[in-house]
């Protein structure tokens, strides 16, 4: 079957706002795999915060905007399992009984993929042309893991990065405590969960934590920094694209100055 190369990038709000370098890493990976990448302007967020807060009217309004903006592309790719999961799993639920938007939501869902699983499962990318000198550990973000079955794909591609060693953390499949609004609404619970996660990451001895979702990475990275840990946190796309030369999440150019 013809592989979809006409790709629209769903940047995700966190990558757009907080860490554009992840977006450019995604673009490079897609282009290296032979795709043309378009970034529709009419995108902001997938609507998940509203959806998970029970505000379905706003979630549906935003979802309709996304569905319209991404019409016609062979594939829609997001550097996030959480946002891709929202579009793939939850848009069809939002419009289950809607004769107009239901079919359009299901059509978009079928064309939408998380970045690393798209490279691996759809484009059958065997390896990447990148080097990373160090030991890393990988956090399996919940939505990507449980809604989209992302587990082996990032590990398979990381295994082709020159110089990189992967060491698994205990409980790599246990939630880091981010959960969107959950982390600020229940900071005591979330704070304890992310502390457990940070300790498990530190215990691996890895110098870098990688993952596929900015929300989780900002949460774990923020906690590691608060603990004074030297572990660096990056999105997996940065390493796969050979673009891990920018400061890690929560670090600036002056890291170590104070």
């Amino acid at each position, binding site marked *: 079957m013809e592989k979809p190369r006409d790709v629209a990038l769903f*940047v995700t*709000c966190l*990558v*757009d706002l*907080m860490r*554009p370098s992840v977006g*450019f890493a995604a*673009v490079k990976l897609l282009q290296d795999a032979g795709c043309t*990448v*378009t*970034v529709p*302007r*009419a995108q*902001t*967020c997938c609507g998940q*915060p*509203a*959806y*998970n*807060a*029970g*505000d379905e009217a*706003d979630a549906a*309004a*935003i979802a309709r*905007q996304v569905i319209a903006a991404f019409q016609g592309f062979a594939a829609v790719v997001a550097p996030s399992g959480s946002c891709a999961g929202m579009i793939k799993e939850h848009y069809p639920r939002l419009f289950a009984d809607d004769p107009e938007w239901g079919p359009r939501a299901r059509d978009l869902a079928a064309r939408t993929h998380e970045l690393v699983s798209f490279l691996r499962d759809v484009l059958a990318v065997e390896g990447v042309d990148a080097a990373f000198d160090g030991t890393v550990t990988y956090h399996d973000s*919940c*939505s990507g893991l*449980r809604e989209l079955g992302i587990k082996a794909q990032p590990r398979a591609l990381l295994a082709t990065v020159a110089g990189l060693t992967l060491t698994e953390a205990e409980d790599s499949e*246990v*939630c880091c*405590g*981010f*959960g969107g*609004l*959950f*982390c*600020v*609404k*229940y*900071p*005591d*619970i979330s*704070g304890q*969960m992310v502390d*457990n996660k940070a300790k498990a990451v530190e215990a691996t001895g890895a110098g870098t934590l990688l993952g596929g979702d900015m929300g989780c990475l*900002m*949460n774990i*990275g*923020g*906690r590691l*920094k*608060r603990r004074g840990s030297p572990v660096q946190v990056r999105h997996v796309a940065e390493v796969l694209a050979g673009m891990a030369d*920018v400061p890690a*999440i*929560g670090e*600036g*150019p*002056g*890291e170590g100055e104070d």
Partner: protein
Amino acid sequence: MESTTRAFNDNVRRAIGDAGLRRSLDKLGHGFPVKRRLAAERLPEFETLRDEARDIKNHVLANLDTYLAAFEAKVTETGGQVHWARDAAEARDIILAVCRDASARTVTKSKSMIGEELAINDHLEAHGIQPIETDLGEYIIQLRHEPPAHILAPAIHLSKEQVADTFRASHDGLPRDRDLEAPETLLKEARAILREKFLAADVGLTGANMLVAETGSIVLVTNEGNADLTQTLPRVQVVMASLEKVVPTLEDATTLLRVLARSATGQEQSVYTTFTTGPKRAEDPDGPDAFHVVLLDNGRSGMVGGDFQDMLRCIRCGACLNHCPVYATIGGHAYGWVYSGPMGKVLIPNLIGMETAKDLPNASSLCGRCEEVCPMRIPLPRMLRDWRRRQFAAGQTGIIARWALKSWAFWARRPGLYHFFADIKMRSLAAAAGRRGRFRSMVMAGGWTGSRDLPAPQGRTFQAQWDARGGKR
């Protein structure tokens, strides 16, 4: 049982500050999940069995009236009696009346979540009848006047030292300086005391893991055998069960049993699985003279046909608790009522009201690990969202959260404005963070920065940079 669910956030803070509880929860969170995984891996048809188990319960829930009527007919036919209780108060009255008819002074009781729901022990005690819990964990928390901390392992929050202290304080007539160091010693002491109680009891009060419509049998599963002594020794047996416990056939019961123990403790089968049908027959050497089943609704029939019907498939294995990172952080008491963990978050608002339990569906990261391990494939995260949707529609979402969501949605729906202002805002935040790349605190972001630094944005947004590079639109 009186609920403390309204004080959820206070309960959470207390739980997180309890170092002993942390140690117990840590042990549980690392023990049960491994055992369950190994048990599932040993059984090639485990996933198929989960599908079958789900289908059996779905079929029951679609024909609940038929199977309950069939069950009642069989119980009656075999010499027993079924009592229907609309709510907890009715059930308590029925059980008290049966106990009084039997002139009961003491009642032995095996573990039952319905018993907790009814707070039957308090009720019997208030009317001069002494209830004695015979499951070791339940016995311990009864001595401590505490509610269960886990639907399966009620005393999971306690250390063996705490149990030893409880025994010293409660078991009169034994030397104060006796050695209670080893768990076996504790077990032996409890067993010696309970043995007397078993023999003296007038009524045996049990729960039921299942009710079999085909035969009128009740199924009881334990690892301690206490339910068997509870149901065979006293003159009268009273079974407390909720409506959805009924299954059509013995065959169906065995399908559920095959997923139950594996999901719960990683055992292939619990140590004791007992099918009991009616009172003692003429040719039986043992058993009660009278057999009563109290069928409790308590809000469940209202769940049939609605958003929460799937919750009625639950077989109380505890897998969702054992795998829940929130439960592992706060323990069972924080939920404030009989049930806890993900199943509690969905069920409790159904049984005691959404208003009282409004924190429960929200205190979840929706990580989905519960649904992943639920033997009955109950879509717990979906139902947590259903509660949130109802709360939002009913205006119960907090004013700040509502305002934040609405203003965020306003911007998200105006991409042009959003991109323009986002770029300005991110650049100014990046400048404010300076060369450090993160914030230690930020106004209005205390929820985040209380326990973690806030990574700063890199600078210009992706959208602005994509435009600047002339990227394809």
